[in-house]
């Protein structure tokens, strides 16, 4: 948005400068030139200089219409303007610097500034000084530098340098304002993004707290107020399940190639620490299930692992249309967890002292 405003401002300024310069060159400059045509030595040189300035203005007009800057041609254009100025002075009758016969003094300056409008201010200043220097050189070499001619030159210079300089200063200020607006805009975007990220993190933290409040927090409260006995195997089992759920919750935030396996490893690790030998074996490839499905798939595993006595085998067999997570372990009969997501089924088989629980997910798409 800020960029658009700035571009519109730049464009407007270029148009205004071009119109002003054209009016001065073709109005004042050309009128003076034609009026004194017979006094130049030769007149053809003056017409050539006028043609050169006209060509540069035409170039600016063409670029403006196509919305393009000068780029590398800018040096050439400035050189052409200075050359036109020098040519005009070479063919100027002696003693006539900064009089009405000296039409180029008040014309070439505008053309140069128009070309240098979107450059830093010092470029315009350097150009104007160069133009001024050519005129001064003519004055010193071919005119008699009397008090009168110098005064006339000085008064002429005030408008020749001063007015275009005003335009250049205005342009520079405008561009700086535009750049500042763009910076401010970026800063606002950055703050907004940071704000959104903070809000999202807060939302996630609340969600996690909500998930823990159902299982972990009552357990911890019970242990703290003594209503739950740490010696009780049922309490120990709840602890093991909650520990695995917390590990899974933390693992969900990790960025990994296969989140399902990553979370299963974290669930298995809790049992591993209790001294249960857990084997994890995997075959096939599968699409990444959403978080809620992964929770359903891993819930069966962590429920069984929490009560496994000595060994457990966890397997994942997957394909494009079915992902099956199984756990086989020596443990007491445990109730199969109820899946929350659609498309997930949990089956349990009790055989002797072995439990086989399988969670299957069929991606529906």
């Amino acid at each position, binding site marked *: 948005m800020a960029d658009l405003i700035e571009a519109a401002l730049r464009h407007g300024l270029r148009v205004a400068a071009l119109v002003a310069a054209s009016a001065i060159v073709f109005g004042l400059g050309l009128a003076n030139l034609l009026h004194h045509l017979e006094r130049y030595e030769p007149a053809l040189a003056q017409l050539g200089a006028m043609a050169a300035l006209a060509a540069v203005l035409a170039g600016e007009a063409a670029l403006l219409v196509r919305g393009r800057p000068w780029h590398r041609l800018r040096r050439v254009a400035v050189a052409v303007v200075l050359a036109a100025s020098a040519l005009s002075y070479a063919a100027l009758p002696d003693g006539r610097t900064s009089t009405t016969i000296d039409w180029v003094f008040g014309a070439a300056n505008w053309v140069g500034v128009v070309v240098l409008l979107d450059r830093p201010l010092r470029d315009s200043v350097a150009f104007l000084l160069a133009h001024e220097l050519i005129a001064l050189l003519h004055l010193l070499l071919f005119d008699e530098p009397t008090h009168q001619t110098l005064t006339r030159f000085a008064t002429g210079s005030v408008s020749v340098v001063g007015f275009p300089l005003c335009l250049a200063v205005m342009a520079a200020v405008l561009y700086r304002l535009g750049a500042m607006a763009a910076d401010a805009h970026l800063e606002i975007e950055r703050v907004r993004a940071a704000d959104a990220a903070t809000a999202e993190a807060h939302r996630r933290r609340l969600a996690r707290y909500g998930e823990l409040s159902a299982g972990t927090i009552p357990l911890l409260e019970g242990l703290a107020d003594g209503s739950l006995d740490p010696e009780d195997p049922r309490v120990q089992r709840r602890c093991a399940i909650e520990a695995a759920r917390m590990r899974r919750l933390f693992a969900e935030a990790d960025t990994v190639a296969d989140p399902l396996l990553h979370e299963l490893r974290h669930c298995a690790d809790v049992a591993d620490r209790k001294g249960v030998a857990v*084997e994890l074996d995997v*075959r096939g490839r599968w699409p990444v299930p959403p978080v809620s499905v992964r929770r359903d798939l891993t819930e069966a595993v962590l429920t069984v692992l929490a009560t496994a006595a000595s060994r457990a085998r966890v397997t994942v067999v997957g394909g494009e249309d079915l992902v099956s997570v199984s756990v086989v372990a020596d443990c007491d009969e445990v109730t199969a967890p109820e899946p929350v997501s659609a498309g997930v089924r949990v089956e349990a088989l009790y055989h002797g002292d072995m439990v086989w629980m399988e969670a299957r997910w069929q991606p529906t798409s």
Partner: protein
Amino acid sequence: MAADELITAVIVDDHAAIAAGVGAWCAGAVPPIALIDAGDRLADVWTGPGAAADVVIFDLELVPGRPDFGELRRLVDTGRRVIVYSQHIDDAIAIKCVDLGALAYLTKREGPDHLVPAIRAAARGEPYTTPSLSGAFIADTAADRPRLSQREIEVLRAWFVSSSKELVAAKLNIAVKTVDTYITRVRVKYANAGRAAPTKSDLVGRALDDGIITLAELNAKESPP
């Protein structure tokens, strides 16, 4: 060989602890199995007491990272009954070993529960399909893989997952013997494919004789997708 005769096996493995562990499992088996430790010397499989052993337990990677398929082929082609014992779970290597004519492929994570039955099966010239090899079969996506029936895949999958034939039988409501039959059928289909080897043709011939599989079923190929 008669059922009551003592089975002898020779193990080639450069890790002394592995050979000692397998030796202990064999000694503790009922009836016990005699194990000859050849260390990392392949020559001891071909000469001396090792040459007469019923079963060769072969560490596929005596040089780490370079599975010795050539030696496996030489052993199989001279009629030896070979169990490949590998530290890697690599489906492609497992299937290649089966294709070369190994009677069993075990990973070193698969303990005495699978190694002892595998040695007994190999001594009879029969294959033993471990859960890891089952996993390799169900994950096989090669274009020329044999076509397996839905039930066969179900049994393989359950065997891979549970690692217990009793559990497979209970889960699928079939007898343990039926579980074995399905696994054998898959194994025969794989034996019928690829390279010719005496152990493989024995396997196919016996399965046809016993009516475990018919010629038509055997020659059905997976149609390319």
